């Protein structure tokens, strides 16, 4: 289902067709829950926040600008809710201008020529379980961008639109997230 169909569903919802919003909920509930669940870690909180995304989207549907993609608008609402949740729980939040490893892009390979790699040491299912554990230890900003890119399958353009960041910065941070995750996996094993 493409964005034109999303826009049509939005218009139908605004005309009072309740069924149209149900289609939106069914389409986006799983990707939003995958994102929020991995960001907050607690299932019940994640369920509550995912519901809240739809409630907020519904109540502010008239303020949605059709020139933007509907999915990116939903993810932006979700991202704000996750940050609000951390603020309320007094958990450390993250700044979009937070310091990054600026040298990462220039880092050259410095790997041993022998010894099994992290990826080869485990069966795929076991490796995925370890990735889930390592994700929880990834700093939130990196985790968010990584999830959007590699689990929700958003394009770099879409992520840049959601976070209102330059696309180059998004690419660098996703790359940094992947390397941090790989290093976390190496540390654990």
């Amino acid at each position, binding site marked *: 289902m493409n964005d034109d169909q999303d826009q049509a569903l939005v218009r139908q919802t605004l005309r009072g067709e309740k069924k149209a919003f149900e289609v939106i909920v069914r389409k986006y509930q799983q990707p939003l829950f*995958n994102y929020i*669940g991995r960001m907050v870690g607690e299932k019940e909180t994640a*369920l509550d926040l995912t519901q809240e995304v739809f409630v907020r989207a519904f109540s502010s549907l008239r303020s949605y600008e*059709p020139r933007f993609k509907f999915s990116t608008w939903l993810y932006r609402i979700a991202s704000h809710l996750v940050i609000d949740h951390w603020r309320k729980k007094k958990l450390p939040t993250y700044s979009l201008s937070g310091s990054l490893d600026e040298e990462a*892009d220039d880092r050259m*390979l410095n790997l041993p020529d022998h010894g099994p790699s992290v990826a080869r040491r485990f069966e795929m299912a076991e490796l*995925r379980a370890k*990735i889930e554990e390592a994700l929880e230890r990834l700093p939130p900003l990196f985790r968010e961008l990584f999830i959007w890119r590699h689990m929700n399958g958003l394009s770099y353009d879409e992520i840049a639109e959601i976070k209102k960041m330059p696309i180059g910065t998004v690419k660098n941070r996703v790359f940094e997230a992947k390397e941090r*995750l790989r290093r976390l996996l190496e540390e654990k094993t």
Partner: protein
Amino acid sequence: MSCLKISALYAYLEGDLSSEEKARVENHLNACSKCRQALEERRLLSEAWTGLPPLELPADFTERVLARLDRSRRRRRPLRLVLLATAALSTASLALLFIISGQNVFSLLSAANKSLLEYAKDGAIICVKALALFRAAGKSLQPVRQALVKTLYELNSLLSPAAQAALIISFLGLFCLLFYFLGRTFSLEKKHEE
């Protein structure tokens, strides 16, 4: 020969390189086992994390969302009614105050305008003219107004205080219903129309 940057390996895996850059990376990979090993490592990891299973949603999640939407819509309605009822009550109270005190609204407005004249002469001339027009209109409607006031006084003497209260509450209720149905009728947003 220097090894490839890690970012180049990821860009290669994502197909995010120009044809020239891609050829350069492939040339290097053919000659460098260390970079081939590093690329393979990242390819396996990419496969693993892009294939992570979805988190399990309760089967009735959609219904829960729709029920919550209904609840939040119901919660918003009383607030709107309270605001409308307050506005209607204020208007009705003001009208009753004028009727009971026997004051003429236009003479009061005119008096206020006179004091305004002392502070802002130029601007007040326009207001006075407008008020004169209103007063003329008021005078022509005076018989109607007097008949209305007389009827209200007669009703006041005929009806018990409880019946009067019931009448006022009924009017306020009608007022609220009128706003509610008007709100529903004109709730569509034009910019989303095709």
